[in-house]
């Protein structure tokens, strides 16, 4: 069974500063995907970034980057130059195999507040 653990229920960061959200996972699979989703008050899950397990290079999307440590089963999200619009719940998620063909396993989330 797959499990995803987010050990930081809440975090805050000053606007324009950098923050790192932690995520660990447990799986016996060798081929999988990892995701960070953002859930603002509108409730819609929005994909922030995706990492394929077979890629050693860490994924980046503008101000968002990940630190993927496969051996340690760790997948942290770094948000640089934090903006007020980054305030939201952030969920780490795991998916076996090919994207779209399997379901997502989510962590319990981290509530991030960006302070002006």
């Amino acid at each position, binding site marked *: 069974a797959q499990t995803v653990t987010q050990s930081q229920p809440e975090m805050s960061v000053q606007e324009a500063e950098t923050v790192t959200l932690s995520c660990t996972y447990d799986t016996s699979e060798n081929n999988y995907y990892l995701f960070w989703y953002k859930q603002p008050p509108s409730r819609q899950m929005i994909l922030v970034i995706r990492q394929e397990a077979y890629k050693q290079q860490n994924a980046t999307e503008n101000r968002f980057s990940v630190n993927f440590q496969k051996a340690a089963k760790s997948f942290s999200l770094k948000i640089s130059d934090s903006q007020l619009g980054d305030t939201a719940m952030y969920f780490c998620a795991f998916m076996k195999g090919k994207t779209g063909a399997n379901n997502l396993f989510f962590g*319990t989330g981290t509530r991030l507040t960006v302070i002006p």
Partner: protein
Amino acid sequence: DAGVTQSPTHLIKTRGQQVTLRCSPKSGHDTVSWYQQALGQGPQFIFQYYEEEERQRGNFPDRFSGHQFPNYSSELNVNALLLGDSALYLCASSLERYGYTFGSGTRLTVV
């Protein structure tokens, strides 16, 4: 381009009743998945529909059932509602080899 549309946005039901939630997938997407998100928790997978068949199912009782129509839209039905069924129900659509697009969910309250 319309994303995933869910209806209704909010719903209040009495314990023991039945409820139907609806989802229209993003244009071009043929797979629909349903998730239950209890307050303060991450979403949990209920089931996934593809070609009008249930392709995968999570650890949910048979009270939870679904349907997918030829236009790829989907319904989630929950019978004999329990207080513990109160949650945000999220629908996500996808196309093979591409990622999910989520709707904004239906907030179900069972009283």
